[in-house]
């Protein structure tokens, strides 16, 4: 099928399938049930008996399951769901749908850099080995790499080489993770935009969603840099992802130049996103969580409004990842004996 035909095709069955799977998502009631569990085993048992994770967890012994393994299984489930829905009408062959693999490859490269910089042992158990065969490099070999030069050599035949080769190393021979992340994520966004073979209306909707999402990611990152690293507006700007969203460069500059985290929030509250948070009853002072809630809200909106497969796939997988993050927050809370009322604010619904 040529590109023009693909562009016109609706893939309604995929959209319908996504909505059917989305209908089985965890409800607020499920989250409160999970939070009320006393142990990871009990939480796993609840997921196994009462939720759409029952198939995935069918072979595990909930009494002995390790928290890390459960988390890995949940992440694997997101990927398998992604493969299932993109394989349903064979849309996975279209370039756009490769986004998930690229996203995961970038995550693995960044994880590798972080471990190298920290000089700690790689957590091989967390490597998503289930994407083996779909990646542009060997995940196990990546985990064995010990320095940035070695990494560049390893990635030589992949698109990531060009992205990372310009990164200047620090005097200790280490690469700045934030710069690597900005470069890799920028590459991801550009590639995503270039792979959009949609109808114009869908493309406009998707770009709008993506730019809003980038805006909110930038808000979270810039807030962290202001609050914890006391970074200047120039420093912050360099580490932000390129965006043409609803925050004008002047507005961005205004927020980034805030002297303190309180001032940052005060200035942010006056932006379109700040006002939306307030309208939705989110706590602007808990900026990171509220920004994530807003991201979740936009994804939900796109899924509900869209009748187009790429938009549905993207937003649905996004929402599923948030669901997994919610479960992981709860499991971690249970593991460390946190009261349910303290876990609840961390849940995004």
């Amino acid at each position: 099928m040529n590109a023009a035909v693909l562009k016109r095709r609706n893939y309604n069955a995929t959209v319908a399938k996504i909505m059917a799977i989305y209908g089985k998502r965890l409800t607020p009631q499920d989250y409160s049930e999970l939070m009320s569990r006393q142990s990871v085993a009990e939480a796993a048992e609840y997921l196994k008996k009462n939720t759409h994770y029952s198939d995935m967890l069918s072979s595990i012994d909930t009494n002995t399951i390790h928290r890390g393994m459960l988390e890995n299984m949940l992440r694997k489930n997101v990927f398998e769901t992604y493969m299932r829905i993109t394989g349903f009408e064979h849309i996975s062959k279209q370039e756009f749908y490769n986004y998930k693999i690229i996203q995961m490859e970038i995550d693995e490269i960044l994880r590798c850099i972080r471990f190298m910089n920290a000089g700690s042992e790689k957590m091989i158990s967390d490597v998503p080995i289930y994407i083996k065969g779909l990646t542009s490099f060997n995940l196990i070999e990546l985990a064995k790499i010990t320095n940035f030069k070695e990494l560049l050599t390893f990635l030589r035949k992949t698109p990531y080489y060009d992205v990372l080769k310009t990164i200047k190393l620090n005097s200790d021979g280490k690469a700045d993770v934030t710069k690597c992340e900005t470069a890799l994520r920028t590459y991801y966004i550009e590639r995503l935009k270039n792979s959009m073979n949609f109808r114009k209306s869908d493309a406009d909707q998707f770009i709008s969603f993506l730019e809003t999402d980038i805006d909110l990611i930038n808000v979270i990152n810039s807030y962290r840099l202001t609050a914890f690293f006391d970074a200047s507006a120039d420093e912050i700007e360099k580490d932000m992802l390129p965006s043409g969203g609803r925050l004008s460069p002047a507005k961005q500059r205004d927020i980034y130049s805030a002297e303190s985290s309180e001032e940052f929030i005060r200035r942010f509250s006056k932006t379109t996103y700040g006002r939306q948070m307030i309208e939705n009853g989110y706590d602007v002072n808990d900026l990171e969580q509220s920004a994530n809630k807003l991201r979740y809200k936009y994804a939900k909106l796109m899924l509900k409004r869209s009748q187009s497969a790429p938009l549905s796939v993207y937003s649905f997988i996004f929402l599923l990842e948030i669901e997994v993050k919610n479960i992981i927050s709860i499991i971690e809370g249970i593991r460390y004996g946190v009261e349910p009322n303290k876990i609840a604010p961390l849940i995004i619904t």
Partner: protein
Amino acid sequence: MSIEKMELVNIAGLTKDLDTVIVKLSDCGCFHMESASKIAGKKSGFTTLREDNPYKPLLKQLNEISVQSGRKFRSDDFSDVENESLSKLGQYIMDVRKKLDDIKTSEKLAGEKLSVHEQAKYQVDHLKGMTVDFQQIFSCEYIKVRLGRLPADSFEKLEYYDDKPFYFAHFSVEKDYYWGMYFVPASYSEEVDEIFDSLYFERTHIPDFVKGNSSEASDELNKMVEEDKKLIADCKKQYEEYLDKEEEKLGKIFSRLKYQHDNFDLRNRAAIVNDKFYIVGFIPKSEADRFMSLFDGLESVSVVLQPADSNGKLDPPIKLKNNKFSQPFSMFVEMYGLPSYNGINPTAFVAVTYTLLFGIMFGDLGQGLVLAVAGALLWKFKKFALGPILTRIGISGAIFGLIYGSVFGYEELLDPVYEALGITFLPFKVMKNVTTILIGAIVLGVLIMFISILINIVTGIKNKKLEEALFGNNGIAGLVFFGSILVGAVAELFGVHIMNTAYVIVLIILPLIAMFMREPLSYWVKGKKYHMEGGIGDFIASNFFEVFEFLLGYATNTLSFIRIGGFVLSHASMMLVVMALSEQVSAAASPIVVILGNAFVMGIEGLLVGIQTLRLEFYEIFSRFYSGDGKPFEPVKINYDENIE
């Protein structure tokens, strides 16, 4: 077909005779007991007994035995244990429980052993093919061996540890796991164990009792599992045998304790002052003589009978008096609510209308008879309360089937019979008389509505509810208005002009005004002064909408009866479809289609018609004259089905 007349009973006596009196009351089966505290006010000095029931703890224990064993104790002759002391009975119950608990504990222990052995077998079965003795493997001095399962994802990650001194050998692959063992030099075991821990390796600890290689161990474990299962079965058998042996005595003890427990509870309904008690209740008037004779010889006890409504604080309970035909239909009346003591018992009316309406809608000779037989069988073998109703309405359906000439959907089967008998006006073919059936349904509905309004007028006058009886929409005014419109409309339809000005003013407008003014008019009839609450505007607005609702009600209620005709036609149409289908299949399959089709239509149509008729009864008929606020007559008795918890 009325409401059983009651007598108010006042019993007074010395407290020493209270238990004797209570036993007589619960044995007689006709005494509805009220709480004496209802009429004995605080000032009278009466108190009620607040005692803990001494039979409750033992009954609770018996109930636990009953629940645990799944055996229900029923009422039984308890003369054998009547004189046993409570402590002796308590000791016996405790002994039984201990014995049963001991057997259960043995069964539980055997179950736990079974679980361990099955788990070990499950693990060993995954190592099938391994011919080395387990003992030999685990006793290696320089090599450590760990058995267990590794997640499939982790198995793929083992290549990361190529440089580490271990070897993982898998025996079988399950959905998400590799079952196997890893070998590691003893000096590296700590490090490698950590690696496998991080890869979520689930280690299996083979119990010490497992001997030999995997095949031998599996055989041995199989034997153990079988032995455990046999032990469990033996425990179960022993449990049942012991219960079989003791069940009779336990049943007798239960009966005695329940009898005493329920009677003891009745003491709380008596009022006490000094050394005297006072009990109040109702008996059916027809039982008065038998009831009075119960107390012959009890000198200290006095029993006084009074008219049922002589005490304003106590409403007499309702016992419906029905004949054999209408008796089963009392279930529907009770479902809606019982009439008041001075009201009327609508069961006979329900029985007749329900049977008639169902028969008309379900008319089929064959299906009706099947329904009648099914109802009789359900009653005989299952005591299913709907059974006798099904029999009656089934016969009604059969009679109407005879009229329609329909037998299991065959519409022409009876034609020759009628021809032979020379009856020309039958059968009344449903599908050829659609208009007649629909008009007939409305006529029947109107007739039923008229009867309902008449009943309301009679009961309203009887109970001095003049507003309803004379001026209400279901009173004389409503009847005249509704009747006049119908008569006038029908007359006009047939070309007879009776709707002149006088007719309209006297028979339509005047009753309408009466309905509008029903409240002040009823005061005026009673000779009382009417005070308008909320002003004239409020009065007009509220009455205007109420009268408007009445008018709508007449129209919708009348049309509602069209459903009778609708269901007559739908029944016939569904059977037509069945017959058409049977003709399209092969000759061999045709009878099967007819049988299944009949069963389907009987089921679905029977249910629908049953529900619709009940709806007509409750909504279109009862709402006109029936309030259903009476309380049921419930004679005190021992309830052997109740669980004490």
